């Protein structure tokens, strides 16, 4: 039953892609996409509840169970909140394909398969960017960064399969760093978020497949020097991106830097060397994925209503679109640790996890988070307040309300009662070490 459920959870979006592609209008394609993602989400929830332990796709030790639910929710947000403006039916098909590959990615362990899926997830994105004249330049930038990233992943996976574990660490770390927009391989990212359809951005970026690849392929194989370097680079990325985000004029570019800053947080946490820091990183992964997906799609929804969003020109429509504005504020603040949301819990764990080995880096994290919160609030004031004129925008539709409501409610409920989510995730944070110790000697290094 459960291996079948795992198969269905990524086959359904792929099937949905085929049907969506053929639809004559974007709205119909979006309906098909929503139905397939809802079905995939239902199957993923079932699989997570029953427990995925079949031989076809063995459970991934060291990662939180139910990751496919996480990816499915992101996929649902990406399609359900996608405005139809500027999209083709094929666009929604490609978004579903990216999501299908991401779903398969988090169910797999073999390094070669992981590398293949890593590359496969970038292909529909590149094709979509190439298909529109206004994003063709973006496709070139994307290719310039993703080709080396994929090549490094394939090389690293090959070395790992050949038991050259120490040699494989560097190409794998570099390949993941490019994908996760870590300094200095980051320039493609704000550009991509600014220009590409937001649903595509979310489907590709929000699941942070690099984190999963890190957990599956890099944990326990990194030499200590590389561990320190990754932690330091993670913090520098957090600070750089947070600072850049505060000075942006374009709302989309500000979101891009925010997302980049959050991925730096996760990279840092994974290498603090403490179970607490790792747990903070895993919870930050989940919080960032959900909150950034919701925040970015909220901005896309506003952009579809209003046109290009300029943070230097006041928007002034809070009175008319209060729910959209409130969703933006809550999702944004959840990502930067607003007390009462799960973001506060993950930030607390990250900071506590860093005090022993990296207290100075922990202090830098605190600065980055403060700057990110300024970006969020500045964006809120600029986009929704400051003017009496109103462009006739409508507030959230029922569809948008439902999806954003689920995201906000999840972040608030888990923020006030975090135990269940933490128990779920802490098992993964500590199980990597336990799983490695439990295996026979020959297999230990390949986990």
């Amino acid at each position: 039953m459960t291996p079948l459920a795992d198969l269905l959870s990524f086959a359904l979006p792929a099937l949905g892609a085929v049907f969506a592609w053929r639809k004559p209008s974007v709205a119909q394609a979006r309906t098909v996409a929503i139905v397939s993602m809802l079905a995939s989400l239902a199957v993923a929830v079932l699989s997570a509840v029953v427990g995925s332990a079949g031989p076809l796709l063995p459970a991934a030790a060291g990662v939180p169970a139910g990751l496919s639910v996480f990816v499915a929710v992101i996929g649902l947000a990406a399609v359900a909140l996608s405005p139809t403006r500027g999209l083709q039916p094929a666009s929604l098909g490609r978004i579903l394909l990216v999501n299908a590959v991401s779903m398969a990615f988090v169910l797999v362990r073999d390094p070669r398969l992981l590398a293949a899926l890593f590359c496969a997830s970038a292909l529909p994105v590149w094709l979509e960017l190439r298909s529109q004249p206004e994003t063709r330049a973006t496709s070139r930038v994307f290719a310039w960064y993703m080709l080396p990233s994929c090549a490094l992943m394939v090389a690293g996976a090959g070395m790992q399969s050949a038991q050259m574990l120490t040699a494989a660490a560097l190409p794998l770390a570099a390949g993941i760093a490019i994908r996760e927009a870590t300094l200095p391989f980051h320039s493609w990212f704000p550009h991509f978020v600014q220009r590409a359809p937001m649903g595509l951005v979310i489907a590709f970026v929000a699941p942070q497949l690099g984190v999963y690849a890190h957990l599956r392929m890099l944990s326990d194989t990194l030499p200590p020097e590389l561990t320190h370097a990754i932690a330091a680079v993670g913090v520098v990325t957090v600070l750089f991106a947070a600072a850049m985000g505060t000075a942006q004029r374009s709302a989309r570019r500000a979101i891009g830097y925010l997302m980049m800053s959050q991925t730096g947080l996760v990279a840092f946490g994974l290498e603090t060397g403490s179970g607490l820091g790792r747990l903070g990183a895993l919870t930050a992964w989940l919080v960032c994925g959900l909150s950034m997906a919701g925040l970015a799609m909220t901005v896309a929804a506003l952009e579809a209503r209003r046109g290009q969003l300029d943070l230097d020109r006041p928007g002034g429509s809070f009175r008319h679109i209060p729910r959209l504005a409130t969703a933006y504020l809550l999702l944004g603040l959840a990502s930067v640790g607003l007390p009462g949301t799960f973001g506060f819990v993950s930030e607390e764990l990250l900071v506590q996890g860093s005090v022993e080995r990296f207290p100075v880096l922990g202090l830098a994290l605190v600065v980055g988070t403060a700057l990110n919160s300024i970006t969020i609030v500045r964006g809120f004031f600029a986009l929704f307040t400051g003017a009496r004129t109103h462009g006739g925008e409508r507030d959230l539709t029922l569809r948008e309300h439902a999806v954003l409501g689920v995201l906000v409610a999840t972040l608030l409920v888990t923020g006030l009662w975090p135990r269940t989510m933490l128990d779920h995730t802490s098992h993964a944070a500590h199980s990597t070490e336990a799983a490695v110790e439990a295996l026979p000697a020959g297999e230990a290094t390949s986990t």
Partner: protein
Amino acid sequence: MIEHWACIAALAALALPAAALAALGLSAASPWRAGERAQSRIVGLAFTGGALGLVVTAADMLRSGDRVRTLSLGDWFSVGHHGFPVAFALDGLSVSMALLGAVLTGLVAAFSARYLHRERGFGRFFLLLTVLGLGVQLAVLGSSLELLLFGWELVGLSSALLIAYFDERIEPVRNALRAYMTYRACDIGLLAAVVWLHHTTGTAAFAQAPQESWVGLAPPASATDVALVGLLLCWAAMGKSAQVPLGGWLPRAMEGPTPSSAIFYGALSIHLGPYLLLRAAPILDAAPVAAAAVAVVGGLTALHATFVGRVQTDIKSALAYASMTQVGIILVEIGLGLRLLPLLHIIGHASVRTLQLLRAPSLLHDHHHLEQAMGSELPRSGGHLERLVPSGLQPWLYRLALERGYFDALLSEYVVGSAVRFLRQVDRLEQRWTSLLGQESQESHEPSVPAPKGANR
């Protein structure tokens, strides 16, 4: 048994506002919105109940002679050996501040029910007022710096959102952003202090030292660490309490509705800085450098605010500077090692300033009453200073006071402005690099509408 129930009564100060917040939040999210009367009654009852609970606790503590009681509710969450304990410390400082908070919030809620009647943002005001009230109770009753931080951040957010209450005008929104940026810049001090305390002592929980009546932070062993933590907490207090040179947001915050100005900048939010420093008293005692910094900052602020307050032409700005002056003096008292006097000063100042700010809209009316009672014009104040200061110097000093000591301009232009210009230059370089890779022409895809002068940065 009685002590047990008296402690639980204190929890009403937290539980009732939390329940009110949940009720107002659900009401706002649902199609069946509660009316004005229901909202004001929910909030009023919540804080009245909280105040009564605290009175019961205080009475029982006085009866039994206990100076400190701790109420522990277990861990909010725990991972292995690490947990986030939810514990509340009931001592003279926390119970007094919590009672002050509950009473003043309830009074302002009652006032606002009429003052904001049929205002467009009535529901929003009461929701944010409840967030403030809850935040203050968490901050003053919490027995660790983490719980204080929890409440502190809620207070900061609600403060900024209420300054921007009249959200259709650009000035309140700009001022709200300035206040929020100041808060966050200074919250870094509080967060960093938490990190450093955990790194050095392993905990940021309050403990009762021998011979002390109140709980406080245990200082680290090393003198450098103590001084560092003390200075970080001083920095945190400076932002929240609008101390020089970071106080420019306070007069601008008067753009918010009068009741919110009263409760935030007359009563509660502005006194959270001195409260934090009173909790850090053991650290200030062990670090003369930090104590001196607190006293110097407070003294300079008192002088600056007195000076600048003299040239204000509207009552709320004048009261804002008066508030800043008194908080500066409170910080001087704390820096000099006094403990009970600052607490009494806080309570007295909060009460008087709240009254003055709530009466501010009726200023002219009150003036007429006074003049009718006196039978003549009210005498001007400050004439003795004009006789002492040379007449040649007066226009220069007047100009300096109008410009608020140039602190705001220096911060905007040379600190924030320089940073923003540098970051935008870096961003232009990034965009040129991606244009090169993408083989596109050099036009930027940034919004091409020129930014209005002085718009949100």
